[in-house]
């Protein structure tokens, strides 16, 4: 279906506009230090890192990792991730996460190519694999720290936070911010070749993710985000989810073409309850459906 045909069939854009307003408000509140808000003890399942000084809330994945590497059990992060995912699925990804908002904004500038929905679950499993590797590394460091046999030196500059190796959010909101704040950018062209090695990798990875965002909507969220992947595990059993009314659906596929996460919505036609691990509850499909066949439910 061409983008013109989708636009003709799509019922409205109201929820999409509301969602972007909510994302903007969340972005401002999360970086609320810029407007005078102090840091709080709130942890949310979002991706920002914790190194930006203007943050008012903490990133659950970063808190979990920093506590594990410091040989502490991250009980508070575990509770936020489990309860957040079982109650709301990946709604925080779709409505609150600042890096998800960046994904959406950059995505509007790009090609907005769909990845076939049949690969959607496979991409989630890939992201889950990355999450598993990162958690394995963190737990290995945790265990060895407790045993008094530190293995951190094996991870070089990433020894205190291995996830930042694959974390464009903390690169954007943390590393790049501090380079500007402390004026660490080299003044000579030659000095750019003498920056720490980790800087080059992190910048390369950030640029790679941005290029991916220009190609397909929510590229990072659907292929690489470890927190999103873990939230998707609980999201498959979430109370807050979507329901597809079989009697109303005419299988026009406008919902699937509108979905930024390439969820195979019509595969849930017989089951009704759409609890897909990639669904970020953006409600683009609810907006798009010309027959109002998709509803939000909490049960």
């Amino acid at each position: 279906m061409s983008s013109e045909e989708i636009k003709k069939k799509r019922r409205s854009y109201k929820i999409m506009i509301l969602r972007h307003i909510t994302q903007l408000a969340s972005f401002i509140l999360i970086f609320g230090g810029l407007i005078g808000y102090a840091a709080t003890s709130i942890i949310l399942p979002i991706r920002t890192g914790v190194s930006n000084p203007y943050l008012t809330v903490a990133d659950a994945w970063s808190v979990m990792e920093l506590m594990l590497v410091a040989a502490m059990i991250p009980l508070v992060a575990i509770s936020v991730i489990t309860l957040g995912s079982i109650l709301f699925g990946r709604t925080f990804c779709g409505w609150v996460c600042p890096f998800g908002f960046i994904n959406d904004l950059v995505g509007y500038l790009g090609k907005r190519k769909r990845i076939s929905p049949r690969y959607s679950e496979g991409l989630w499993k890939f992201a889950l694999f990355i999450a598993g590797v990162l958690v394995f590394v963190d737990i290995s460091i945790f265990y060895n720290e407790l045993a008094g046999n530190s293995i951190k030196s094996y991870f070089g500059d990433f020894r205190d936070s291995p996830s930042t190796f694959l974390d464009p959010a903390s690169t954007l909101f943390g590393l790049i911010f501090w380079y500007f704040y402390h004026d660490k950018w080299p003044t000579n062209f030659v000095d750019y070749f003498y920056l720490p090695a980790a800087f080059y990798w992190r910048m390369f990875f950030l640029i790679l993710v941005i290029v991916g965002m220009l190609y397909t909507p929510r590229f990072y969220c659907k292929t690489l985000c470890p927190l999103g992947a873990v939230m998707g595990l609980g999201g498959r059993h979430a109370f807050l989810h979507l329901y597809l009314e079989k009697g109303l659906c005419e299988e026009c596929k406008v919902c699937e073409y509108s979905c930024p996460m390439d969820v195979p919505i019509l595969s849930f036609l017989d089951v009704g309850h759409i609890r897909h691990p990639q669904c970020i509850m953006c409600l683009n499909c609810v907006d798009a459906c010309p027959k109002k066949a998709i509803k939000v439910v909490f049960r």
Partner: protein
Amino acid sequence: MGYRFTSARILIILIGIIALILAFYYGQLDYAKTYLTRFVREELAGYPA
């Protein structure tokens, strides 16, 4: 919704609630603020020494 689905839900909710209670008991609820109110060098791999 089958038994597997309901069991998985109950398990995830139990893990979350127990973690929350233990986090409260061990005083971890305010821990995030310790990261947000200092220079977190740990996350800045690639920052010049």
